[in-house]
Structure formats: C-alpha cells, structure tokens
C-alpha cells in the first residue's frame, strides 16, 4: 500500500493506494489532524501513522506535500513540492498530458503549464489570500449561506473591486445594503475570484484547463472560467484530493 499526504493550510488530505489502483481518501481539519496524529520529536513534526491508517495496513512508502512538508519528519517519507504533487495527481486523474492546471486551495492559488505530463512553467499568488478557499468561506459567512449555495451563482454579478480579502468583506456588505439580490452578490464574489486569477491564467493558458483544489467544487466558477476563457474546463472527481493522490502516484513510482 502507498500513502500520499497533503498537509494543507485548511485541511490535511490522506490518499491510500492499493495494488488494484483504487484510492481510499480521508480528510481532517488541519488543527484536528495535528492534535490527533502529530507530536514534536527533536523539534520536528512526527506523524503517528499507526493511528492514522486502517488497522493492519502495511504502507510501503509515504510521500508528503503541502505547507507542512518541510517540518514533517516521518520515517521513510519523502516530501515533494505542491505544484509537482498537483500536476502528478491531475495527470493521473484526467489521463491528460497537455493542459493548464489551476489549483485553488485553502490559502493559495497556483497555475501550471503542463506539456507531455511535465511542468514547463508555473505562477502562484503571493502574499495575498483574495483568490482562495478561505476568501470564499469568509464571503459565504458574510452572506449567511453555505459554500455550496455560494457556488451556484454566476449571473448578474455585482462588481467587487477590492483586491483585499478582508476589505472585500466591507465592500460586499456595502452591496448588500444597496439591496442587490443574494444571487447577484454571490455571483459577484465568484467573479472577483476569477478576476484575481485571470492574469496568471492568460499567461499560461492551454485549450484545456484542469481545475483542482477545494474551490474546484464551486460550479459557478467552473462556468465562469469556461465562458470567459473559451476553454474546456475539466474538474476531476474529489478535486481537493488531487495533491494527495499525486503523492500516491509518486510513491508508486518509487
């Protein structure tokens, strides 16, 4: 059995792969994961794999990625960069070799140009969370709706100009006060994400866009991307596990 571990900022994703090619997927809130399975050993994080994995599971190799990978000292585990993990996962899940990858996670956004299954260029956001899952969570909370509800709307968006995730909230409240319908407010939030990532996407665009990370579950954003960019948007099943699955793929490769 092989194990892929994506130590993300909002959640930790675990993918287990058997010889049959299927994956077992588990997700933990980040704080919960470290409380239950993490301990400090020689100044580094050690993960208790016996508690984490199913009883009796024999894991041949563990590959980790994500913010925590630098600190995680797991016996036999090797760390790979997040972009590599996501591209490996996306190639495995979609069977595509030439595409642009868009990964929108809890606190960051990445765009990679993939040719023949390899990264040839990439861009990431820097020092700002205004195009990430965390931003959507905050905006949904301001609107008093769930993320699922937020992700339904793309028509008649209100215009939100703020480039800051925090000041964006005040701007959204301002629009609510003006009496715009909920659907337009939610569409405005989804469009603001699109506008933030568009400069990165335009620079590395392909005919096919593979969209991964938790934010890929937002159906409205998928619709906006395909309409505005005129490209095919592919979202793999369980897009938030792409990095963990990519780690599993790497673990199998040895």
């Amino acid at each position: 059995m092989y194990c892929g571990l994506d130590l993300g900022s909002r959640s930790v994703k675990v993918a287990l792969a058997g010889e049959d090619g299927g994956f077992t997927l588990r997700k933990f809130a980040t704080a919960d994961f470290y409380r239950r399975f993490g301990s400090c050993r020689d100044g580094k994080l050690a993960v208790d794999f016996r508690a984490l994995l199913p009883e009796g599971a024999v894991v041949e190799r563990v590959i980790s990625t994500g913010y925590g990978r630098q600190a995680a000292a797991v016996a036999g585990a090797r760390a790979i960069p997040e972009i590599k993990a996501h591209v490996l996962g996306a190639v495995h899940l979609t069977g595509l070799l030439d595409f642009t990858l868009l990964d929108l996670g809890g606190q960051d956004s990445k765009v990679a140009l993939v040719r023949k299954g390899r990264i040839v260029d990439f861009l990431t956001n820097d020092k700002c969370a205004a195009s990430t899952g965390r931003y959507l969570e905050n905006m949904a909370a301001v609107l008093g709706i769930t993320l699922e509800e937020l992700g339904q709307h793309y028509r008649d968006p209100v215009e939100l100009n703020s480039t800051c995730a925090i000041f964006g909230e005040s701007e959204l409240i301002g629009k609510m006060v003006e009496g715009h319908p909920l659907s337009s407010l939610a569409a405005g939030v989804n469009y603001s994400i699109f506008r933030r990532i568009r400069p990165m996407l335009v620079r590395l665009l392909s005919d096919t866009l593979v969209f991964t990370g938790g934010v890929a579950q937002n159906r409205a954003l998928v619709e906006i991307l395909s309409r505005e960019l005129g490209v095919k948007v592919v979202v793999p099943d369980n897009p938030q596990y792409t990095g963990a699955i990519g780690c599993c793929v790497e673990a199998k490769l040895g």
Partner: protein
Amino acid sequence: MGYRVGLTTTIPVEVIYAAGCVPVDLNNLFITDPHPGALVEEAELAGYPRNLCAWIKGIYGAVMKHSDIRVLVAVTQGDCSNTHALMETLELAGIKVIPFAYPFDRDRDLLKLQIEKLMAHFGVDWPSVERARERLDAVRRKVWVIDRLTWEENLVSGWENHLYQVNCSDFKGDPDAFEREVDEFLARARERSPRREEIRLAYIGVPPIMDDLYDYLEERGARVVFNETQRQFTLPYAAADLVERYRLYTYPYGIFYRLEDILREIARRGVHGVIHYAQSFCFRQIEDLIVRQKIRLPVLTLEGDKPGRLDARTRMRLDAFLDMLR
C-alpha cells in the same frame, strides 16, 4: 579620519574617499544590524506606511539609530522616488542631505556635471578623485576574480559571491582592511575543490532582504553563479575614465540597458534558470513583465517584504522551480 557619510545606494564613492571621509552604504548598515526588523518598525512608528519598501524604512531606522551619521548622499534619480520622501523626513530630523542624480538617458555631460557638483560639495579635485579610483580599482579587480571563480571555476558559493560584491558599494568604509579580507578569501577559495551543483542560477534585481536564500538553494543542489546588481556594485567594466565607469554601470539606468548585461552574462555563465527578485511595493515589480518577455529561460519571480528568513510560500515556490529545472 574624516566623518562618516551615508549613501542610499552606490554613488561615485571615489569622491567621498578623496575627501578623506568614510562612506557607509546605509542598506548594508540596515541589513547587517542585529535587529533589522526593529529598524523597519522604528520607521513605521515614526509614520512610514506599512505598504512601503522595507529597504527605505530600514535606511530611515538605521540613520536615526546611528547618531554619528549626520550627512548623507541620496540618489534622487536612478533609484526610486521613495528616496525623495526619505530625504525629506531625514532633513526634518536634522540630517544634511546631498542629492545625486544619475541621468535617465545615460548622458555623459549630465553625469559629469553631477559628479563635479558632488566634488565641489566635498571640496576635492579631479587628480585626488582619480587617485582614489586607482586605489579602489585595485580592490575591485580582486573582487572580479571572486566573481570569475564563482562561475568559471565553481570555487565560490552564491552567498560569498553576493557578500564580497555587495560590499564594493562602500568597501566597508576601509578599502585596506576590505582588501585584506578579499586576499584571505581568495587564498582560501583557491584551495577548494570545485563545487558540483547540477543547477546553475542567475539572480537578478536588488539584493534579497532575506538572508537564507543562497543556502536554501545550495542545500537543494542549485547555486547562483550570477548576482546581477551585486556585480554592478564592483563597476565590472574596465574603462579607465571615471565618468565612463559610472555610465557603463547599469543599475541606475533603465531595464533595457540592464537586460543587455543580464542576457550577455546568463549566456556566458551557462545558467539554467533565473530568479528575479523584486521588493514588495517596488516599481520594479512592473518591470517583471519585460524581464519575462526578454529572457528566454525559466524565470521565477520572488517577492520579499520584511528582513528575515524565507517564508513557507517562497520555499514552496523555490522547490517547485528547482524541480521544474531538473
């Protein structure tokens, strides 16, 4: 020994030495302080905005801390306009500020006039400035050797290359002592076996505000073999005439002139990828789009804000970049 004169960036330092004064590159004074972050905070407490270049704030904090620096030469053209407000706030604090402007179009007559105005201020003549140039050139030539040993013989680390070249802006206030340091280093470096990093990188843009970039890269099998701006501080072109030297010097002039030097050096040094560093809130972030169009190698753009160590995001981006180059 004369009084200390602060510099906001590299200027014709020969003039300061000819006057018997001691130049102090304020960037170096800031970043080598035991607590550079505290100097930035000092400036913010005084009222400098949070969303402003930390180098400018650090220089302000450094001048306020070192009360023996009462005179400084500030580059008003060829660096950035934040320097203007830095000058004004320091003037308010009683510091004497002497402006120096590199002409945007590298006009020889205008540059000569600027140098002569600086000379008049310090009361020195051309023969004494030329003598200072000859003395400093002897040291610069040795630092050029450090640079050559970096890329051609692979005996010098990226950080060492950075350190010795960056110190050529003021020669640490004592060219004789600095020359001895350089001599000792060269003797040591020549005894080493060549390094074997598989990835060769160019570092372009202003020097990094974080101090562990070079080590981080080398721990991962990549080495910087070209430090663009730091090398410029050594005036790497062998023209004999002082005005011509500061006209060939690329840093204060436009990005296209800088790119001529960058493209020549990355080809000569067999570089695999380029790191373009731009300070947070710096106008040079705009120039990144030109850099990316003109350089036909993979480019990673890094942004740094406060002094300190590489943050998790930057490390992740560096890892992915190196992985891509392999």
